[in-house]
C-alpha cells in the first residue's frame, strides 16, 4: 500500500507550508495584513499537522523529498529574505499559492484513498484540511489580485 508514501508527503508538505507562510509573513512585516494572516494560517496548518498524528500512527509514513525540493527551490535559494517591493510581495504570495496548490492536490489524493478504505477519521481530517487549504488559496488569490495592478503598473525602478 502506498498510502504511507502519501501520508508522508502530506505531512512534510504541510510542515513546509507552515514554514513558508511564516517566512513570507515575517518577510513582509510592512504589510501588516499579510503578516497577521500568514501567522493565523500557519497556526492552523500546525493544527492540521497535529491532527495527522493518529493517521501517521495508523498507516505509517514514508517521507518523500518532493516538497523539500519545492521548498529549496522557492523558499530557500531565492529566499534569503522576502522579495522586496510590490512585485516582490506578489511573487512571494504566488510561490505560496503554488505550494498550497501542491498540498491541496495531496489532500485530494489522500482523500480518495480514505474513501476507498472507508476510514471515517481520515475522511474527517481530509475534509477539514481541504477546507483550510481552500481558505488559504482564496486568501492568496484575493491578496494577489489586489496587489497586482499597482505592483505591475505603478511601481517604478
Amino acid at each position: 500500500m502506498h498510502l504511507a508514501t502519501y501520508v508522508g508527503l502530506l505531512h512534510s508538505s504541510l510542515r513546509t507550508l507552515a514554514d513558508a507562510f511564516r517566512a513570507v509573513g515575517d518577510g513582509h512585516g510592512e504589510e501588516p495584513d499579510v503578516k497577521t494572516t500568514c501567522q493565523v494560517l500557519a497556526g492552523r496548518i500546525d493544527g492540521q499537522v497535529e491532527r495527522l498524528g493518529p493517521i501517521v500512527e495508523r498507516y505509517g509514513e514514508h517521507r518523500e523529498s518532493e516538497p523539500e525540493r519545492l521548498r529549496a527551490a522557492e523558499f530557500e535559494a531565492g529566499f534569503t529574505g522576502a522579495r522586496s517591493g510590490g512585485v516582490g510581495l506578489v511573487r512571494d504570495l504566488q510561490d505560496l499559492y503554488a505550494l498550497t496548490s501542491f498540498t491541496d492536490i495531496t489532500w485530494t489524493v489522500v482523500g480518495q484513498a480514505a474513501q476507498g478504505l472507508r476510514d471515517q477519521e481520515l475522511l474527517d481530517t481530509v475534509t477539514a484540511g481541504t477546507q483550510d487549504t481552500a481558505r488559504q488559496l482564496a486568501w492568496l488569490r484575493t491578496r494577489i489580485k489586489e496587489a497586482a495592478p499597482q505592483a505591475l503598473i505603478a511601481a517604478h525602478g
Partner: protein
Amino acid sequence: MDRIADIWGPRTPHTPGAAWPVRVDQHLEEGLTESDVDRWVQSACVLCSNGCACDVAVKDGRMVGVRGRAEDVVNRGRLGPKGLYGSWQWSDTDRLTRPLVRENGKLVETDWDTAMDLVVRRSKELLNEVGPLSHGFYTSGQLFLEEYYTLAVIGKAGLGTPHMDGNTRLCTATAAAALKETFGADGQPGTYTDIDVCDALFLFGHNMAETQTVLWSRVLDRLEGPDRPVLVAVDPRETKVAQHADVHLAPLPGTNQALMNGLVRELITRGWVDHEYVKAHTIGFAELKQTVEPYTPEHVAEVCRIDANDLRRAAELFGTKDRVVSTVLQGFYQSHQATAASCQVNNLHLLRGMIGSPGRGVLQMNGQPTAQNTRETGADGDLPGFRNWSNPQHIEQLARLWNVEPLTIPHWAPPTHAMQIWRYAEQGTIRFLWISGTNPAVSLPELSRVRAILRQENLFVVAQDGFRTETTELADVVLPAALWGEKHGTFTNATRTVHLSEQAVEPPGEARSDLDIFLDYARRMDFHDKDGDVLIKWKDAEGAFDAWRECSRGRPCDYSDLSYERLRGGSGIPWGTERLYGDHRFPTDPDYCEDYGHDLLTGATTTPEQYRAKQPGGRAFLKAAEYVPGPEQPSAEYPFVCTTGRTVYHFHTRTKTGRSRRLRDAAPEPWVEVSAEDAAELGVAQGDVVRVESERGAVEVSVRIGRCRQGVVFLPFHYGYWDTDSDEHDRAANELTATRWDPVSKQPVFKVSSVRITKREG
C-alpha cells in the same frame, strides 16, 4: 441651561411606544436673545452620527446660535453639548481664507488660479507618466453627500483610479462590512424609535453616553420611565452606560469574538433559537453552531476575564426578552476580528428572528455625521449606490449612467482601502494624494509613520480644510474650504435619515465649498464622457443631489423619491422604509447584493460562482469565525493594554470643538485613565504626569484614576498639536497605535496596543 455640567439635560420619560416627548434645546451667543436673530436656517448637527436636526440663528451675516428642531424624528428638539457649543462657535476663528502653496519649504498664500494650476499640472504629469494608479484620494466622514458623489465620479469615471477612501475607514467601515456580510448589502436595519419600545437594550462596545449624547438622552428617558427596559453593556471600562447597566460585561480588549461566540452558543444550547425563522430566512446555522461549540461560559470567562455567570445572565436576557435592540460601535469596530464580532450581533438577532419589527432591531452605528453618505456614494472603498464591484452588470449600470466605457471604472478588485492607500504612498506608487476634510496626521494610527509619508519628496499632497491642521502643515497645496453653515447639501445619519443643511452665511475670505473645489478640478482636468461631452454635468449642490437620485434609483439606498423640496421644512426623512427587512427578505440575491462576502478570518473574497451556488434567495447569512488572540499581547516590557476613544466634549481632532471656549475649558488637555489598583502599583496619583509608551511612540499626559478594568488604560484620541507651542509629538494617542486592521472591514485596530507607563521625574 448648562449642557457642560448637565450633559443629557432634564428627563422626559414616557411609556413604551409613546412618542418621545419634545424638548427644545437652544443656545445663542452671549448677550443675544431670540428677538435679535435675523433668521433661522434649517440644518442638522455634524458633530456625530446622530444627525440632530437644528436651525441655525443668523444675525448680520454671522452664525450666532443654534436650536433643536422639535418636529424632527431624530432628536425632537434636543441638542447635546457639542451641538450647542461646537456647531458655529469656530466659524470666525483662525479660518483658512486663501489657498496656500509650498515655496522653498514654506506655505505661502496665493490665489485660486495659481493653486489649482499647480494641482492640475501635477495631476496631468502623473497621468501621462504613470496613469491613474498614481492618484489617491483620502476623504472624510464630514463632507456632504453631493460632494462625495462628485468626488466618486471624478475618481471612478474621470481619472479611473481605485484609490479612494474616507476616514470613514476608521469609524464606520465595520458597520458597513458587517451589514454586507450578513444581509448582502449595507443599510441600517433598525431605527431609533425601536429604542422607545424595546424591553432589552444591548450596547456592544458603544459608549453612547459620550459618543451620541442625544441618543443616550433617549435611552435615559426609557431607563427612568415606566416599564424600564433592561440594559446590558459590553465595554472594558466602567462608562456611564456601564453604570446604568443591569449586566456589565467587561471583556479584556481584543477578546470580543470569544465573548460573542459564547453568547451565541448560550442562545443555541439553552434553546433560545427560533428554528423556524432560522430555517426560512437564514443560511449557515450548522456551521455557526459548530464554530461556537467550544465557547462554553467557563472558557469564555477565562479568555475574556469575566464572570461566567454574567455571560449566562446576559444571554438569558437576550434569549428571553420580547423586544431586543442592539447597538454596536467602536469597541467592536476598532478591534481585530471587528467584522466577525459585529456579525455575531446580527446573528443573535437572526437566531431569534428579532429584526424588522418595532423594538426588535440592530443598529450598527456610525461615528461621523456623514459617514453613511461616503458609503452610499462610493467615496470610500465601495461603488456608488451599494453596487457590487465584482458584478459586471453593476459596472455596466454605472458606465451607462456616466456614459463611459465599463473598463474605465476600476473593478478588478475592491476599491483600495485607506490603509493600503497610505501604504502605496509610502512605497512611492501613489504620488498624488488629495486629502479632503480630515486630519490624518492626528487620526490615523502610528503617527510618526504618517508624518514621514506626508513629508516624502515624491508625494504631492493636496489638503483641503477649513483650518490649518497638523495635516495641512505637511501638504504641498492647501485649499481653503467652506464648512457647515457656509454651503448647501444633504447628509444622512446612522439610521438613514436624510437632512438638508442650508447655507446660512457666506464662507470666509476666498474659501469655497468642497463641491465647488471638486467641480473646478474636474473642469480644469477637462474630464469628458465617451461622446466628448463634459463628464460632470451639474454645477451646484441640488444638481449633484439630483444626479445622485438617478444613480441610486433601484438600489437599496434609493433616493429617487427624495428632493430638496421634500427635505425643506418638517422632519428629516429616511431612505427606505422606517425600518428595513420587515418582510424578512434580505438583499442577498446575487444580481442585487452589494457584496459576495468574505471569509471572516482572513478576508478572502467569496467568488461570484461560490456565492451563486449558495442560492441565498433573500435569506441572510449566519457568518461565523473562531476567536484568535490579537496580534499584540501585553508583555513584561509593555504590560498594559491601551485602548483609545472619545470624550463627550470633543469631536474628531477638535478642529471645531477645540475652538469653542466652553468645550475647550471642559476638556482642555489629554489624559490617561488608569484603574485605582494599577495606579497604586505604579505609585501614581490623580494629576501626576506619566509617560505612556508603546513600541511605536509615547505621550506624556496626566493621570485620571478610575473607570478602567485592571491592566487596561484609556487615552482620548482627539488631541493633536495645533494648539500647543512645543514641537514635541507627545500628546496624540495615535503616536502609540499600530498600523494594523481587521481583515474584512480593514478598519484599524485602535483599541488594542500594548504600553508601559512610567512616572515622569521632577
